């Protein structure tokens, strides 16, 4: 039973981790927290359904198209409109605005698209696999694999490329980076685009499990947020750890502690982290 | 009698140390000057003393009590008031509200304040002070609409509201018109005569030399000299530290 829970927990955690990493990148580059992150997952999911089921594109092009469009909408447009308008006023107005934005996305989708849950096929065929006592599907390994590839690529990008290093510099000290000649605005734009791509990937992984629905992002966004805080808001590796932890906690709580209070347990962990180690498990203290 | 004293006060920001163990003591009723070139750590010294910054080492004593690293609100209520070099105001509050805020927390209990309807005493005191500072016509103006000099005066007025035992003035005359400056100096002297102990950071040498009874000089976070104005003026180390920075009159 434990290996079953582990594999499933990691598969779920991989999705959370990708979204949580998006959170962290936004925070690092712009010191903003996006409360509409869940809806940022819903939008690419609906785009995929739109391209695949409505426009009848083949599967792979549909997903690629959805990723490109969401990178444009959630990265570029978002940066040029909301972020540019609000960043000077600090985090709180942005938090409130993104809460409103979340409502806007959900309500628009119910009215203009559909309030129903939609089925969406997975990227690879779902074949049942067995490992010891654990029975799972190829999809779980695929989730872990995709998340690992995306995260490794991101890591290499941040550590090895010039752009990535500039992003790191901005994360450490925005003013100093600006003085050093780094175009901070461009870095923020880049972070938003990367975030959009990350959530689009996680949407493609989440859609077969979560079903495409206007409120699918509620749970995903919250869980990813928990993950980012538990792991550490200012560390990509923290968000990764947090995501996996949240996935595992969720499944192990349901299996061993209580099904009725399963969403409460992760919150207790979260509140404990906030109160006793606000920087998160792997996070570093920030000098603000 | 020492009313205020620091022993080995240290403050460092990561690798940079702004204060490297400063010992200063001020006697009751003194008008003490603190000078030094730009970046020598004068304002950092004030910030550490008033609790705005956490000290990295050393101690601060006020009337015999160790107040090191106490909260700024507690230190204020113990009777240390200060003004600021760079303006720190409540931009969308009226001048009168700024003044009243300066005193309300030092009176009564928190819940008592909730039930306060009558603040006439404070209002009267605030208006008197504003009158003296010649800005009483601005009482209902938002403080953000005041000129720099007027804000400076308001800042000065606010520190006087509570009648603090020890007043820290950070460049009080900087940016104030020349005729007002003379009056301010007189008022500072009057305050001092009334029994207030005052520490002044000043750029303007004339002001310090005329005003203060004793002066300490900071340079790069260290006290390099201390004494009467005459002693300081003739101190070779001080002259060296100030050499070439004299023309920098801006604040």
């Amino acid at each position: 039973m434990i290996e079953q829970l582990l594999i499933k927990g990691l598969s779920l955690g991989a999705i959370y981790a990708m979204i949580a990493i998006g959170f962290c990148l936004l925070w690092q580059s712009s010191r903003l927290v996006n409360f509409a992150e869940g809806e940022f997952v819903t939008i690419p999911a609906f785009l995929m359904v739109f391209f695949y089921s409505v426009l009848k594109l083949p599967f792979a092009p549909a997903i690629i198209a959805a990723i490109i469009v969401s990178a444009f909408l959630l990265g570029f447009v978002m940066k040029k409109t909301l972020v540019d308008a609000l960043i000077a006023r600090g985090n709180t107005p942005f938090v409130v605005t993104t809460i409103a934005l979340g409502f806007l996305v959900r309500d628009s989708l119910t009215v203009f698209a559909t309030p129903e849950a939609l089925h969406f096929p997975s990227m690879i065929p779902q074949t049942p696999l067995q490992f010891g006592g654990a029975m799972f599907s190829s999809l779980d390994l695929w989730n872990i694999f995709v998340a690992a590839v995306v995260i490794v690529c991101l890591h290499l990008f941040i550590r090895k490329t010039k752009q990535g290093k500039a992003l790191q510099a901005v994360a450490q000290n925005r003013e100093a980076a600006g003085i050093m000649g780094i175009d901070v605005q461009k870095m923020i734009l880049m972070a938003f685009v990367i975030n959009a791509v990350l959530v689009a990937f996680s949407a493609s992984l989440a859609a077969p499990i979560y079903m495409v629905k206007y409120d699918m992002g509620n749970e995903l966004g919250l869980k990813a947020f928990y993950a980012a805080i538990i792991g550490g808001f200012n560390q990509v590796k923290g968000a990764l750890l947090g995501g996996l932890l949240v996935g595992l906690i969720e499944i192990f709580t349901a299996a061993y502690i209580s099904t009725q209070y399963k969403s409460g347990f992760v919150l207790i962990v979260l509140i404990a982290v906030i109160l006793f180690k606000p920087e998160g498990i792997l996070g570093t203290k920030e000098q603000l | 009698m020492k009313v205020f004293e620091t022993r080995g006060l240290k403050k460092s920001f990561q690798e940079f140390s702004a204060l490297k163990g400063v010992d200063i003591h001020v006697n009751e009723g003194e008008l003490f000057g603190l000078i030094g070139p730009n970046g020598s750590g004068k304002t950092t010294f004030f910030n550490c003393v008033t609790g705005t910054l956490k000290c990295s080492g050393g101690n601060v004593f006020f009337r015999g009590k160790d107040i090191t690293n106490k909260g700024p609100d507690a230190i204020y209520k113990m009777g240390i008031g200060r003004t600021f070099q760079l303006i720190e105001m409540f931009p969308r509050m009226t001048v009168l509200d700024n003044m009243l805020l300066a005193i309300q927390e030092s009176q009564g209990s928190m819940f008592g304040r909730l039930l306060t309807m009558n603040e006439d005493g404070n209002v009267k005191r605030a208006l008197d002070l504003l009158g003296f500072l010649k800005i009483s016509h601005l009482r209902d103006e938002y403080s953000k609409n005041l000129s720099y000099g007027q804000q400076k005066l308001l800042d000065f007025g606010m520190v006087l509201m509570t009648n603090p035992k020890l007043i820290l003035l950070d460049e009080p005359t900087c940016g104030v018109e020349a005729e007002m400056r003379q009056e301010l100096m007189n008022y500072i002297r009057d305050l001092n005569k009334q029994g207030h102990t005052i520490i002044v950071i000043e750029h303007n040498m004339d002001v310090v030399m005329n005003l203060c009874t004793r002066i300490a000089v900071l340079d790069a976070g260290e006290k390099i000299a201390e004494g009467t104005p005459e002693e300081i003026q003739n101190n070779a180390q001080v002259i060296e530290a100030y050499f070439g920075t004299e023309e920098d009159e801006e604040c």
Partner: protein
Amino acid sequence: MDKINQGMRWQKMVAGSLCGLVLLILPSVIFKSQYFLYLSSLACIYMIVSCGLNITMGYAGQISLAQAGFLGIGAYTGALLGSTLGFWVTLPLGGLIAFVIGLGLGFPSLRVKTHFLAMVTIGFTVIVYLVLMNEQQWTGGPYGIFNIKKPSIGPFAFTSPAAYHIVVAVVTFILLFFAFWALNSPWGRAFKAIRENEGRAEMLGVSIRNYKLMAFAIGAGYAGVAGGLIGPLFGYIDPTMFALGFSFLFLLMVVVGGLGRFEGALLGAIIVAILPETLRFAEQYYPIIFALAAVLIMIFMPKGSVSFVDWVYKKLTGKEELQLTK
């Protein structure tokens, strides 16, 4: 001069209060339809919540998403203890319990950053919801609690919607009056100072933590009292009425109305409770319009829709702002 001002201040206060009370009670007299009476009562309840939240958020600058949880605590206090203790005891009791829990929740979490506080309060709301849902033996679980009685004084029962609206209106009036009083007392000045320049306020002796804690707890207490009014209004409560979504709604309510403006929060409550009715033609689009308006208001009108009222006021009277609080 100041003596005269003092006298006028009292006069103004009494006149303004009477006016407010009459306005709040007015629907009981003019509306016959129980639907409009219900809307009026709901608007009053929302006003209580948003007025409290405005103190927490608009004045002390903390994002709280715990409002739905506190509302639930107040409502269940009323529903569970109402039959033994009576409405008049449980109403303030619910507020008091929420206030105390607010203190307990705020005390450790106010030192963390804004968005962390938002998370702690989200967590709180979710946990309250889970408890209400799962502790069926006490709370009735998802079945909720039925037949919540409307209050009575002696032989006179406030059973008709019009009579109950009077109760709601009077409670609303008392709470708004207290908030108005507090915001005009030195507390209001301290709240404002914290919002404008926290560091400087602290250097003037303002105990940031105490004031923020009080602001948070007052917001909680207000939501608790509002919860106590909800039960008798619907005659029924269940946990879904206190789900997290409502916390978000309350937050937007204050933002759309006008953060940090006493009258702004009230306007926000009215917009949320009543405007959907006047925009009947847009029925299904209303939530979209509201959310879009909230986004646009945050960007272009940071002071909220009350700044539109200011604009009208300026056109009418030539004065800068319609400001009820200092």
